[in-house]
């Protein structure tokens, strides 16, 4: 055996043994690829329809349900309070009419908050829900400035309460907003506010799939005159209002 052959064969043997000894720990193998997951989500486009005529004035069922479900911080001081869902009393100065309006994240089709996020913590999921990855958020609050609906809130303080232990709360230093109860929606349930509103008997909030033309929400949007807030901005919100 000449030197060339010897070197070749030893090289082969060494590389074979080293690959054989490699432990199968290098990567996490997951069942489905990213593309499959995206396609699965994009079958739906979630939207909400709020009938302000059926929303009774003193009722705060949806607000408390949201707070309890999502561990939204309430300190009793308006500087630090976080609201995923707000009930605002609006007054028309010309006519003197007053109206309670539910305000929440509008889950825009072109979300300005997601466009400005420097770390891509805020993003639009394939099913249209605009959501914050709190692991990634650095708390720069750029999204709060970008949002034309004032739907985003910053956690200045640690939340002292933890009513729903199955759902994580947010630590201080991150921005949060309504996410259509994405954890419930993924399990085939309705958002907490919708369920509470149905339970209270008002049935003012309707939640459903806008892609599906036969869904309750799509039919009602087609049949009744609906409005969205600041449609002129081109953000294409997915929260519709009747009687705004």
């Amino acid at each position, binding site marked *: 055996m000449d030197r060339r052959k010897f070197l070749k064969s030893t090289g082969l043997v060494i590389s074979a043994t080293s690959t054989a000894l490699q432990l199968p*720990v290098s990567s996490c193998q997951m069942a489905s690829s990213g593309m499959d997951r995206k396609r699965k*989500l994009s079958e739906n486009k979630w939207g909400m329809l709020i009938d302000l005529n059926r929303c009774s004035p003193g009722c705060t069922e949806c607000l408390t349900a949201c707070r309890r479900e999502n561990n939204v911080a309430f300190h009793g001081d308006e500087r630090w309070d976080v609201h995923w869902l707000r009930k605002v009393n609006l007054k028309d100065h010309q006519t003197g009419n007053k109206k309670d309006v539910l305000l929440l994240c509008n889950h825009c089709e072109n979300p300005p908050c997601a466009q400005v996020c420097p770390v891509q913590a805020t993003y639009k999921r394939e099913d249209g829900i605009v*959501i914050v990855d*709190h692991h990634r958020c650095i708390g720069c609050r750029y999204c709060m400035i970008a949002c034309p609906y004032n739907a985003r809130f910053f956690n200045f303080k640690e939340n002292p309460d933890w009513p729903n232990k*199955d759902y994580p709360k947010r630590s201080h230093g991150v921005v949060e907003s309504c996410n259509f109860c994405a954890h419930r929606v993924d399990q085939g349930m309705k958002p907490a506010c919708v369920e509470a509103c149905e339970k209270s008997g008002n049935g003012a909030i309707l939640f459903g799939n806008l892609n599906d033309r036969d869904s309750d929400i799509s039919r009602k949007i087609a049949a009744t005159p609906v409005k969205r807030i600041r449609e002129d901005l081109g953000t294409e919100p997915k929260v519709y209002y009747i009687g705004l």
Partner: protein
Amino acid sequence: MKIIEMLTSDRSRMYLIGTAVLLILLPPLFSILFSSRYSSGESAAGFLEMPDAKYKQCVRDKAYMRVHHMDYLKEIREQFVRYGERGDISLSTCSGCHTSRDQFCDRCHSAVNLNLDCFGCHYYPESNSQEAAAGVTKWTDANS
């Protein structure tokens, strides 16, 4: 010219081949040395304590979890948060068997002075409850 002569001489050629063979041999040697650390060479008996009433098997094998649990958790997190795929396994699956955070997570992490951010937001019961303390059995290789 002298250098070339030196390099082409028989003796220096032997040295060159020797170093080359050594260089080729080193990486697999290292991998053998360090792989023993992963493959249950050492025992964690008595270090990580857990109540094993429900526990039969971890979601992955022990050697994998010992070294790569953080990668695994990150992968699950990505699935949860980015793709909305909420599988059966979450952090509460961990706390289902390893009920006490003190004895499961914090033991190693505080020993190496690693501060986790997980539990500022995610619920994981701490040790102090009575039934958790009563149910604790030693982790041994036999029951793992």
